[in-house]
């Protein structure tokens, strides 16, 4: 029996949407108030979905302790209470939630060995969310 397990994690981080390839006017036009040079922050809800056969012995797709350990170490510790713009993955990429989704997926795809990573969904606010499935 194949099932999909989703766990939600919260991180708080700041960012500024800005591209060096654009003029100040273009940055302002495209990114609006998100281009404020001092940045701003969000409580991001990161939903990690893994899938696989439900183990007959344990009744689990994967052990939650393993999932929490990997996501805690690789994602929460990396991003929580950080300025996303200062991280290497956002040196050249604008830290939009689209790009954060892709970064989180790529890190977890390498780190999760005990189940299949199905998708990463991030809520930037209650009103918008982004999904990436590889």
């Amino acid at each position, binding site marked *: 029996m194949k099932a999909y397990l989703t766990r939600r*994690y919260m991180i708080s981080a700041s960012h500024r949407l800005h591209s060096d390839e654009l003029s100040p006017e273009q940055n302002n036009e495209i990114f609006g108030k998100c281009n404020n040079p001092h940045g701003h922050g969000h409580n991001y809800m990161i939903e990690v979905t893994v899938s696989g056969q439900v183990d007959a012995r344990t009744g689990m797709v994967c*052990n939650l302790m393993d999932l929490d350990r990997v996501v805690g170490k690789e994602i929460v510790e990396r991003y929580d209470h950080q300025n996303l713009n200062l991280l290497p993955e956002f040196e050249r990429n604008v830290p939009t939630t689209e790009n954060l989704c892709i970064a989180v997926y790529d890190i977890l795809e390498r780190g999760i060995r005990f189940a299949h990573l199905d998708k990463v969904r991030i809520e930037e606010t209650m009103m918008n969310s982004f999904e990436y499935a590889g």
Partner: protein
Amino acid sequence: MGTVYLTRKAEFAASHYYHSPELSAEENLRLFGKCNNPNGHGHNYTLEVTVKGAVDATSGFVVDLKQLKEIMNREVLEAMDHRFLNKEVPEFETLIPTTENIAIAAWRRLEPKLKAAQLHRVRVYETPDLFVDFYGEA
């Protein structure tokens, strides 16, 4: 007319614990941690049942919500609400009542009873931050 998906939610409160008789006491504790406490602990579960089908030309319904609610109550909630899952729900005499197995058990209870619409997904929330989806896949 295309397929439309309809989701109905319900809540139930139940207790459970995780323990495999095939494992030693030490292995159970290592694998399941505090969920292994034999006295059990509880959750407010949310059950989400999604059915799909064509919209009936006369009623405008995919399914009669009243009937769906009655089936969910009779087949799942009456069996699981305010119960100790390990001791009072037959499936969990042999299966560990993880969220995965609760979703599968709910699917198996509901699927044969739904006539008009087809069961698409069962989602069970153990907490707001942990849920399992089951689509009837082998």
